[in-house]
């Protein structure tokens, strides 16, 4: 058939890259949002200030929409290991299967069940139990991140296993598998990234309300709490990222060489700010360099040795330009986040944080920053480990299912269309929720805790359109 001439491995990779990139946007947001909702509800219970509950009730709706999209795009992932990478599933199943099984057992059920209480349980459980549900959901998102990042990290830095005579991989030490060398770094780096992603969305929405002069008390809570994250957490993320990079240098030096665009092994390697990596020509053209900085960052010595890509045969090098550029994108956004924190601190000290309009506009512009940085970071680490699916053990090309190109190509196109539609609609409804803002004026109507009779609420909504 028509698509059978296309490379099934490449098609499978594009499909997986697409579905997993799409999926990660939602956890990247919900991990942070769940924790923040727990903090908001705790503040509300502790201080009794309604403003926290207003903010909670608005964002929990955004959470529900985002979480729903995360669930359905996540279910797809759990089947794609088998549909698209069946040889990998067969060989690595003994090691990775239990990790994913634990994710379902310890996290997914927890999140799914208590999300129901969180959304629909307002009038059925006590405020303390409701808070407990929020807290449990937040914990569930972190447990889920723990297992899935453990599995991913094991594929980057495999440990605690042996290859059997039948070619299958067998576990020898579970602790070494779960806490494999890159896992602690990747876990912390990702969870902090998720928190920052949420903080910048919240800051953007708070800034938007302040610009419009509406919901000012609620907007102050949003912007203020988000700035705490930007001021204190964004710089710490730089440190965690650096530690993660050093860990990568130790275990996956070819990835770091690609990040740096460095071809020759050298002492006193310069840091390339920009340049055009040329994979075939084995060089990085038009590089703007800072002398010796790369060696200083990576080895903590001015004349430390950094290995270049030419140390590896051509077929074992990752696609350099992808890694090089996405790394710069991630770091660049991280720097802008730190700058935002510095500006926020400066304005706060001058008591101008809630009055400075250009800064609010800046925060609105930074709303998608976290998502871009998370995606860029994942591209660095996933493209950077190619050609391996399990680093040094199994290549991506070996892993692919015995499915011809045509069904893979058609399903890829379908996923793009369906996800485009779904994402478009979800994005639209989230924007609508944000434009509507927290409901603060109306008192509960009747005894059901419903703000307005549904028919009135509907009219009001239609007028708003």
């Amino acid at each position, binding site marked *: 058939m028509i698509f059978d001439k296309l490379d099934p491995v490449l098609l499978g990779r594009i499909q997986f890259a697409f579905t997993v990139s799409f999926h990660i946007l939602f956890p990247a947001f919900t991990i942070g949002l769940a924790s923040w909702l727990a903090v908001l509800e705790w503040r509300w219970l502790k201080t009794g200030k309604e403003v926290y509950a207003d903010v909670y009730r608005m964002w929990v709706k955004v959470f529900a929409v985002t979480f729903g999209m995360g669930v359905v795009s996540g279910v797809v992932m759990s089947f794609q290991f*088998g549909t698209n990478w069946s040889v990998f*599933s067969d060989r690595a199943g003994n090691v990775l299967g239990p990790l994913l*099984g634990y994710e379902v057992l310890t996290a997914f059920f927890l999140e799914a069940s*208590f999300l129901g209480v969180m*959304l629909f349980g*307002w009038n059925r459980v006590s405020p303390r139990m409701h808070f407990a549900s929020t807290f449990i959901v937040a914990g569930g998102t972190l447990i889920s991140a723990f297992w899935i990042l453990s599995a991913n990290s094991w594929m980057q830095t495999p440990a605690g296993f042996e290859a059997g005579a039948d070619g299958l991989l067998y*576990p020898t030490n579970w602790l070494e598998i779960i806490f494999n060398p890159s896992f602690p770094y990747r876990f912390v780096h990702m969870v902090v990234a998720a928190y920052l992603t949420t903080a910048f969305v919240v800051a953007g929405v708070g800034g938007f309300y302040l610009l419009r002069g509406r919901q000012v008390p609620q907007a102050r809570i949003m912007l203020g709490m988000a700035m705490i994250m930007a001021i204190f957490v964004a710089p710490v993320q730089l440190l965690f990222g650096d530690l993660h990079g050093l860990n990568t240098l130790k275990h996956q030096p070819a990835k770091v060489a690609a990040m740096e665009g460095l071809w020759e092994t050298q002492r006193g390697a310069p840091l390339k700010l920009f340049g055009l990596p040329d994979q075939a020509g084995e060089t990085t053209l038009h590089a703007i360099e800072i002398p010796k900085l790369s060696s200083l960052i990576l080895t903590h010595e001015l004349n430390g040795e950094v290995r270049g890509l030419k140390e590896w045969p051509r077929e074992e090098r990752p696609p350099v330009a992808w890694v090089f550029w996405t790394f710069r994108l991630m770091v660049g956004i991280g720097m802008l986040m730190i700058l935002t924190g510095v500006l926020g601190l400066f304005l706060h000290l001058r008591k101008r944080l809630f009055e400075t309009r250009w800064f609010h506009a800046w925060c609105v512009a930074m709303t998608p920053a976290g998502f871009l940085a998370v995606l860029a970071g994942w591209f660095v680490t996933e493209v950077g480990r190619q050609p391996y699916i399990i680093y040094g053990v199994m290549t991506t090309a070996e892993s692919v299912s015995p499915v011809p190109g045509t069904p893979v190509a058609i399903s890829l196109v379908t996923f793009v269309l369906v996800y485009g539609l779904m994402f478009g609609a979800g994005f639209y409804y989230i924007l609508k929720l944000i434009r509507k803002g927290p409901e603060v004026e109306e008192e509960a109507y009747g005894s059901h805790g419903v703000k307005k009779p549904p028919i009135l609420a509907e009219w009001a909504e239609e007028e708003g359109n």
Partner: protein
Amino acid sequence: MFNFATFLDLPLIWYALIGVALFLYVLLDGFDLGVGILFPFAPSDQCRDRMMNSIAPFWDGNETWLVLGGGGLFAAFPLAYAILMPAFYIPVILMLLGLIFRGVAFEFRFKAVRSRRVWDYAFHFGSIVATFMQGMLLGAFVQGVKVDGRSFAGGPFDWLNAYSVMVGMALVFGYALLGATWLVMKTDGITQEWARRCAAYVLSYVGLFLAIVSISMPMMNPGVRALWFSLPNLYLLLPIPLCSVALLILIWRDLHKGKEYRPFFLSFGVFVTGYLGLGISLWPWLVPFQVTFRQAAAAGPSQSLLLVGTLVMLPVVLTYTGYCYYLFRGKTSHEAAY
């Protein structure tokens, strides 16, 4: 490295556990998919709001059993997962797409005003496609899969034939029965009245399809025939189909007597008997007639580690799942709750 394989029959335990997880999925997501199947036929928008609200707190947890079934199969029987997923590539992807449409419809529908109708149909067709594909998967599964070495060796459309289409339709009616009896239990007034008529209507089709599948399974496969129609097996196994018949009759009577709770649980019973019959017929295959559950089993340490987690977590999961059903007990209102 701990390994319980020395004193426990791990593959057998896991065969049973995966079977239970998949069955719980069928029961639990079955009724909320069933609600989706019946959705556009409801008498009014208010009925539809109420139908949606009756399952909104549960659908996410219900669908998690599918992830557990898939994830558990990967963990406990990676070889079966690696053969079956490529073999059923197209229906699995279509099922997932169906689940996407209906899943997002829960959230989007309540936010939408002018486009609410669009999400009503996304919910309906998503539910039907997901159910139909699950039935087709079952129909194709019982007919067996071509295997060479450790991989699937057939074509991309091997799963598509009249028999799998028939089982697909059968499951649509089966889930519709679960959905209708759920609504009889969770609603009142015109919604309940309508749901009761729906249940009575689909019940006859469920009986018909159950009979066709029960007769065709032994006819298509000599092994299954030998299993069911040899003595003394026939006497030992005969109670299963007899139970199905008795349950169908009881549901019929209950629906006409106006009982509210029992039809739902009796419908569960019908699924139990069907599933048992199927399980007995397919024993001990995990990829029918090619790979047994013993051949597909993961290494002892892998199955052991997951067993520890399951023994600790499964009771906890069941407890708080039960808590959620208890919390949202009683009749559902049509008002949006959050």
